[in-house]
């Protein structure tokens, strides 16, 4: 059954970026806005972010947006676009203040201001030493951002379609974006959402890898849909491994632990980060710390020979851990059976964050080529998008900042667009492509291969060969394997053929998204013959600015992947060697 809805603006994804956009849209009189989310919005993975959100508020010591911008550019290994980074770091201050006004319960300084603490890669005086810049609410900052934005959506009367899975974006015959197709999970019905403007804020795709901090829901739906519709994907080779995931489970242990003074130690008890990053030590940027941990493990200094090292917070005392890191203490007790007050935490790097995604300009408008040609009516924000403010490696806290700054910008840009734009007519049978994908999955007779086995194999090969240390041979192997899995996927059978809450069907459809994104990731990675940020090649160990100071765009055309490049925008900070 098909239902049709008409709105001015449509936000796809109920996480931090999407809800921030929705709040701004709801403030524009006369605009009809809806949010479509495959989860109840408060289940979104923004809520799992822990440590904080950076803004140069200078509540505890001198700080400036220029310092924040420099750190972000350096963290990005000079691949971030500096005009967008400067804007983000400037706007960080009013946006964080606005979140406080919306009700966000930040932790407080003794004089009642928003509390701030150090975080990896964030420095004073352009790299001289750590600075207290991360605004936090204990170790549940993302949870409080998500709750506060949801609360303000309720206050503003935002209309939600909860548990609606986006399946496709609708492009009108003149090329404009004019809506999306969604699958109502409860009933199996398809819905056509017809709108002047659509924003994809569907989050990341950490489920491509086997050890990940990401939710089961993080399957990159919006990014994969864009790819299928001929929209390029930018810088997909840059995927961040967070240094400190709980051993084997991948659950995130916030960098805030190190911000509060936690130390990484190898099997000899050595504080090994002193060797890799003499100034910033344990608070170097994430790519540097993850590589250091991997190197310690490879050289036999993992704890008891295992693929892990210790994150030691025992010297911080019960007061700091219970008050500033209560959720971390809870995770350790629940999943490890240890008390971080008394014992070190066994950790390993965990797949965490996509620097790449759907390319946009600084106002969240999706661009469809390296000349920044705007796709009218289509927007993207948050982890789904690649502005690029994170370049080759994102700094800790800048994901939450990206959400709120670009969520706001996206909402404002869409509101402005909608007040003048007309509603393009729908193309014929706009739901046909979505219907075809579902029918194909439902049409395979029983007894086919389970989707889960293909997912396991994809995650394992991506973990082994497109992880922290990469080689041309390994990545080529991964690319071939993923392509083989895509072939085998055609024989996957879904055992639940019903229409009611069919998560069997949806999980299989999500796997198709993951496979597509794994392929683009491996392809982009094997293509880039240098090391930069999170992309570390053993066969090309140096950064190569002469040839590779540029963004990768991968576009799918008639089943073929086409690679093109876009120059990096450099304004204030010329590339130089990156030392922490």
């Amino acid at each position: 059954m098909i239902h049709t809805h008409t709105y001015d603006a449509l936000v796809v994804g109920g996480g931090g970026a999407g809800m921030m956009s929705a709040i701004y849209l709801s403030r524009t009189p006369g605009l009809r806005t809806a949010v479509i989310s495959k989860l109840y919005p408060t289940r979104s993975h923004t809520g799992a972010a822990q440590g904080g959100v950076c803004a140069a508020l200078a509540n505890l010591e001198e700080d400036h947006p220029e310092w924040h911008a420099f750190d972000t550019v350096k963290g990005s290994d000079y691949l971030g676009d500096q005009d967008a980074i400067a804007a983000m770091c400037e706007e960080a201050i009013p946006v964080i203040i606005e979140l406080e006004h919306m009700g966000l319960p930040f932790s407080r300084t003794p004089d009642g201001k928003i509390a701030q603490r150090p975080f990896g890669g964030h420095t004073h005086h352009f790299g001289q030493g750590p600075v207290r810049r991360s605004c936090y609410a204990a170790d549940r900052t993302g949870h409080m951002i998500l709750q506060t934005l949801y609360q303000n959506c309720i206050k503003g009367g935002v209309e939600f379609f909860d548990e609606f899975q986006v399946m496709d974006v609708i492009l009108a015959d003149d090329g404009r974006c004019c809506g999306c197709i969604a699958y109502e999970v409860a009933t199996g019905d398809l819905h056509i959402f017809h709108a002047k403007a659509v924003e994809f804020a569907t989050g990341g795709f950490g489920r491509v890898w086997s050890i990940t901090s990401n939710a089961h829901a993080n399957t990159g739906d919006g990014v994969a849909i864009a790819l299928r519709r001929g929209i390029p994907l930018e810088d997909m080779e840059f995927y961040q491994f967070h240094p400190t995931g709980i051993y084997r489970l991948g659950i995130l242990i916030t960098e805030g632990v190190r911000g509060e003074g936690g130390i990484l130690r190898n099997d000899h008890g050595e504080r090994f980060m002193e060797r890799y990053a003499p100034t910033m030590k344990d608070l170097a940027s994430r790519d540097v710390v993850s590589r250091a941990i991997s190197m310690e493990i490879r050289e036999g200094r993992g704890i008891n020979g295992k693929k892990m090292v210790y994150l030691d917070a025992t010297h911080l005392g019960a007061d700091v851990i219970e008050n500033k890191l209560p959720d971390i203490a809870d995770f350790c007790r629940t999943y490890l059976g240890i008390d971080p007050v008394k014992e070190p935490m066994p950790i390993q790097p965990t797949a965490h964050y996509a620097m790449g995604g759907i390319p946009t300009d600084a106002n969240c408008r999706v661009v469809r080529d390296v000349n920044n040609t705007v796709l009218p009516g289509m927007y993207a924000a948050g982890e789904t998008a690649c502005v690029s403010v994170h370049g080759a490696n994102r700094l800790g806290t800048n994901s939450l900042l990206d959400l709120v700054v670009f969520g706001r910008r996206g909402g404002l840009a869409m509101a402005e667009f909608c007040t003048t734009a007309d509603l393009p007519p729908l193309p014929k049978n706009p739901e046909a492509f979505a219907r075809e994908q579902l029918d194909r999955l439902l049409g395979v007779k029983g007894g086919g291969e389970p989707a889960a086995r293909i997912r396991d194999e994809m995650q394992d090969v991506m973990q082994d060969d497109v992880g922290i240390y990469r080689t041309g041979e390994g990545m080529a192997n991964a690319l071939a394997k993923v392509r083989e899995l895509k072939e085998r996927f055609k024989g996957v059978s879904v055992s639940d053929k019903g229409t009611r809450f069919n998560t069997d069907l949806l999980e299989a459809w999500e796997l198709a998204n993951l496979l597509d994104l794994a392929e683009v990731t491996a392809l982009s990675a094997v293509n880039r013959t240098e090391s930069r940020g999170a992309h570390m090649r053993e066969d090309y160990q140096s950064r190569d600015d002469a040839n590779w100071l540029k963004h990768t765009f991968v576009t799918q055309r008639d089943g073929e992947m086409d690679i093109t490049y876009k120059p990096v925008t450099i304004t204030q900070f010329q590339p130089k060697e990156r030392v922490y």
Partner: protein
Amino acid sequence: MAAPKTIKPSAGGGGKAAAKLATGKRIVLRLYRFNPDVDEKPVYREYTVTADPTDRVLDALNQVKWYEDGSLTYRRSCAHGICGSDAMRINGVNRLACKVLIRDVGDHVTIEPLMGFRVIKDLVVDMEPFFAQYRSVLPFLINDSPVPSTGRERLQSVHDREKFDDTTKCILCAACTTSCPSFWADENFVGPAAIVNAHRFIFDSRDTNANERLDILNDREGVWRCRTIFNCTEACPREIRITKAIGEVKKAILKGSRDIHIRQPATSHAG
């Protein structure tokens, strides 16, 4: 009831089957199954999985769904106790499936949907009434006075921030409300989760509409339905002291003001 089936282990996070066969043990899951489109009434089906003691109950459910019976239906997302998707009744008590380990539930585990809401399918219940209760208490900051002319944050002391710290932890999983006998007896009772979220704003020094929320909760379907049974506190996966919070709201209603003495915990949760 179907005969128990043995399922090949899969490893929750990806292909570590061999290790699990070596260390895992056999667990029988007795699962509530109901698809109203085809079933006249709910049934319990048994599945046998191999699981490590440190696996989550969610991992065991995933093994069944991914490798044995794809039609088994439940909600899940973050898998580490933060998103609130997978609250369900595990051996008779409300828990998040991702926050209970196999070693803590024994060899035979009965899993059922939350009580008090319509079952959509298997372990999935209709959450709309729950969110309607939540929305009824004005769960958002209200303060129409001008923001500071400095363009900066409203100030709040560490002490004032502490008064509502505990209730900011709520993830809206509904484990508390659906464990409450008062809610089972009266579905119109606003329920502990909504009161927790009202408390979070009533005691926030920046909010100006505490009395309006206190009036809402002074209704016959408000806090007075609470009989201080403590099920909610025991069910909360975030360890929020819910009964204490409800008590503070009751006290504020009786006093006609939020200016009551709030007993602080041994440690302070502010930064």
